[in-house]
């Protein structure tokens, strides 16, 4: 088994909805070039997009780190923001603290985290109120 690895990073700015989606489309391109199976690409891109939009909608700024090896992709989103007080509650479908402005942009249905959960093989969220949130998404290429 080869130990080839790749790593890249993207910066995300809170409130900048017009730029959202760039990291997802780059990750998608990369996975396509690596010949990863279509369904895995789809799931990864959905989960990443939701996580990225959460930074844009709810936090101030963040960094997305992507690590790929021949087995899996791990995406770690670290943000500076208000943090999440009750993660369990935040995961519930329909729970949202999105502002009216964010809702106006078409977000804020409270679907993002549960959507991430169904599209990630492993999802871990840690958060400190007042500091920020770390979301880790892991998907395997071969089942």
């Amino acid at each position: 088994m080869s130990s080839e690895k790749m790593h890249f990073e993207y910066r995300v700015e809170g409130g900048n909805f017009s730029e959202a989606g760039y990291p997802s489309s780059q990750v998608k391109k990369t996975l396509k070039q690596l010949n990863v199976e279509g369904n895995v690409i789809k799931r990864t891109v959905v989960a990443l997009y939701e996580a990225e939009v959460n930074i844009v909608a709810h936090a101030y700024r963040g960094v997305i780190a992507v690590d790929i090896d021949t087995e899996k992709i791990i995406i770690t989103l670290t943000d500076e923001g208000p943090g999440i007080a009750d993660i369990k509650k935040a995961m519930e479908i329909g729970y949202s603290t999105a502002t009216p402005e964010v809702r106006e942009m078409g977000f804020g249905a409270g679907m993002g985290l549960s959507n991430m959960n169904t599209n990630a093989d492993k999802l871990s969220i840690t958060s400190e109120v007042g500091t920020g949130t770390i979301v880790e998404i892991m998907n395997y290429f071969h089942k």
Partner: protein
Amino acid sequence: MERKTDNQFHHALKFREDLCIGCSHCMNICPTEAIRVSHGKAQLHANRCVDCGECYRVCPVGAIIVEQDDFENIYKYNTRVALIPSVFSGQFPDSVSSGEILSAVHELGFTHVIEVEEGVEFLNDRFNEYIRENQAKKPLISPFCPAVVRLIQVKFPTLAGNIILLKAPVDVTALHTRKELTDQGIASEDIGIFYVTPCAAKIVAVKSPVGEEKSVIDGVINMNYLYNKIFKILRQKKEKSEVTGFSHLSEKSICWSLTHGESGHMTQGRSLAIDEINNVIEFLEKVENEEIDGIDFLELRACDESCAGGILCPGNRFMTVDKLRKRAVKSGDSKGNTPESKTGKISMNDPFLLENIPLGPVLPRSIIKLDDNMSEAMIKMKRIYELNRVLPQVDCGICGSPTCKALSEDVVQNQASIKQCIFVQKILEQNDKMDMQESIQIMKSIWSDNKLDQNSLKDEINEIN
């Protein structure tokens, strides 16, 4: 290479080496980066081509041609059916009636002339059912435009499963026609069904169909060829014959192949229509990123103004659209007093058609993947990234590849050398790593001896200095 793959890469667009001047216009326009220049000639990478015909439009010397069946082939059959798409009627001046067109086609030797869109009403119902039953695969993508189907196979492999697996109107009409004729006692092998095509993509759809073994159509006739033949007949005619034309199609059917033709008639949820291949690519990128939400059906067409803009349509596409819309309005007005609606003959739940219109799966054949082996692919990807970083990003095409990024990929796939970049050559020359002779040799191998002939500026050379 295996036979099967050869067939899969069959293309209706052919490059005539004898005419090609190696100008690279086609390379620069190709939306799938399927063309390179080598030895002064355009080279087609068959696995990347989707037969959209953008290259055909820009070639300044007519070196790209569309393959064509021999017209005489129709005489191999006793019963000769011409299947004519409605856009054909939009090619002629207003003074030419559809009746005249119809009789001219008969005069050319066809025993039956039928409009392709007769199958539309039947197919529209099936599409609506299909969309209702396949909500999990949203957005469902119309299989109508073969260039788009192939584009998805090569460039958007993850969306291959979103394509509606039902045949096109032309196949429905062809199946129905053959069935009707055999029911009348004509032997199937005596029936030849010929499709008059507006584009190269539809030819490929007949010659090497996706999702079916063999097409129900026996041959194709290029629309510009038929147009010229008919125009000649019409010019020779002194008096106008009063034959009834093909006015029996419904409004919907007449406009089906135009932009919004399909999308306007899907009853389930929300539909969108997008035409022109670069617009389609831009939108599919977003669909693939799941950035587009809540769309049930996508009508996607490779040509601007859809089939009115097909590369084999002789008329102006905007005029064609206008004519078809006028014809559609007229057909709507005359509802009720049209003699007998021929479309009615295709029963909405014809069991024979229902059984025969499903398509097999549309398989992805990605041109994006760098290697089947993932760690190989990763090594290549890193190498491409490194190479691309040293290239100037001018995308001038002088290396014979359409962009700097494409050259990086070609190098890593062993199909080019980084020394083909003119900037790299200059840098190497400054470092005494390349002499002029070598760089000239490289340029000649891309652009041919002619373009770099030492004597070619003989007269002007003194003035230049």
